[in-house]
């Protein structure tokens, strides 16, 4: 049987990759993808915990549902904003959108 730790480590790796993506990528959409990775990792965590440690209440699973919902909505909203910025600035690179600083 696969022990719980495996899932946790897996999600940790994915999460960290997501973090890396957010830090490294320039394109706003790519950043969003990385964030999606992170959220996935989190929901994986939750479900793993739910399945292994919380069989009766499975709160984690519910949490995962909400996370997925929010994530989807977030992507939608974020993309709308990206497009909006693209319309204004003809770029979707986050480090070019740096009028506001200092």
């Amino acid at each position, binding site marked *: *049987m*696969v*022990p*719980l*730790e*495996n*899932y*946790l*480590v897996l*999600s*940790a*790796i*994915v*999460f*960290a*990759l*997501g*973090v*890396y993506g957010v*830090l*490294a990528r*320039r*394109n*706003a*959409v790519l950043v*969003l*993808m*990385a964030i*999606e*990775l992170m959220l*996935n990792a989190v*929901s*994986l965590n939750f*479900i*793993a915990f*739910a*399945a*292994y*440690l919380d*069989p009766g*209440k*499975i*709160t984690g*699973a*519910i949490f*995962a*549902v909400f996370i*997925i*919902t929010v*994530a*989807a909505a977030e992507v939608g909203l974020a*993309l*709308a904003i990206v*497009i*909006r910025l693209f319309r204004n600035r*003809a*770029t*979707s*690179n986050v*480090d070019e959108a740096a009028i506001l600083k200092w």
Partner: protein
Amino acid sequence: MATEVLWWIFAAAIVAFSAGTVFSRSVLHSAIFLIGSLAGVGAMYLFLTVEFLALVQFLIYGGAVTVLILLALMLTRSDARGTPDAVNGPQLPFALLVGGGLMAVLIGVAAGTDWRPGGIPDSPTNIGIETISERLFADFGAPFVIASALLLVALVGAIILARQEEGE
């Protein structure tokens, strides 16, 4: 036994896809890899015997989200002047550093914590759809309502922000 082998394969796949998502040079490839990774996670849900969520995962992520992302990519193709600009920012090495560090920490946490003080049996229990629905609609009604409001907000927001105004 077989499940474990499969698990490892899938785990490897997920890591590979995720890595591809964040490392690949081409935007579109990243998108594809993302789909892969999301699907992989969905498979993991199957391992955890949460079929419903796996389904949701496939539908929402594999479907809606990725489509949305691809759409956005299309809409924001910045190589109108032809040259695809660099996808990675200047702070990439530091990103590697921090990402690696965080990974180390989190793995350490995952491995270094005693998750079962009570000594619960180390096997996933089947999470039936009815349990989920029971919990979701009976116990977590309130968040559900709030979530609906949230979706409404996102909807409205997306509309008013993305809507083309005259003069654009």
